[in-house]
């Protein structure tokens, strides 16, 4: 069975991520694929370069899966994130959420991507026409309960 939580500089395979959470008890697998967009904040993006603190990123994915399974006990998550240069249209992250029924699979996958953006030690270095910039989003704090609640609300709206 493929690994459930992974950081890799190789192209991501959504089928592989889905296979990591396959099981006879599941009636739904929601797969979220985050891809690199050609435009950001008025800039023409050429490609993104992702950097990660891989061992802590994998632990963060495990933590997110644990949080999700407390909220949606029948749900199982797999999260793969890519590092290095990722071209426009390519996948930077793939999340598969399996559950007995579709509602929990959709909600758990949405929760997971929100939490990845909040606490996974991963950074985008955007290369655009005319320059480059490090994208800095959230201050990573897994104990920040308000952030976790915000992710839950987005998942359940």
């Amino acid at each position: 069975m493929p690994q459930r939580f992974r950081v890799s500089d190789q192209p991501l395979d959504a089928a592989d991520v889905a296979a990591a959470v396959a099981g006879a008890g599941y009636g739904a697998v929601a797969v979220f694929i985050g891809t690199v967009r050609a435009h950001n904040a008025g800039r023409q993006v050429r490609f993104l370069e992702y950097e990660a603190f891989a061992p802590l990123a994998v632990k963060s994915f495990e933590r997110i899966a644990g949080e999700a399974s407390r909220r949606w006990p029948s749900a199982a998550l797999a999260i793969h994130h890519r590092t290095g240069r990722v071209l426009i249209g390519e996948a930077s992250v793939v999340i598969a959420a399996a559950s007995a029924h579709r509602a929990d699979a959709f909600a758990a996958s949405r929760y997971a991507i929100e939490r990845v953006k909040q606490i996974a030690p991963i950074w985008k270095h955007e290369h655009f026409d005319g320059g480059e910039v490090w994208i800095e989003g959230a201050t990573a704090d897994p104990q920040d309960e308000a952030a976790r609640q915000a992710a839950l609300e987005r998942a359940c709206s």
Partner: protein
Amino acid sequence: MLVTVRLFARLREIAGAPELRLELPGGSTAADAWAALVGRHPELKGYASSVSCAVNEDYARMTAALQDGDDVAFLPPVSGG
């Protein structure tokens, strides 16, 4: 005591290295390591309120006490996904 400091993304670029060693007095915390680092690279100062830290590959508070040989990572705001 001697600790290894790991830096990522913009912090790594400012310091000019992904990893460096810091000699710190016994009883130092992650915040002390950060202060020593800012002493070497004043441009890091702007990250004081947004930096996160990890000790030995687990998230930790800046108040965490360090031991000889610890691995301390400083993380700028994250942007995965």
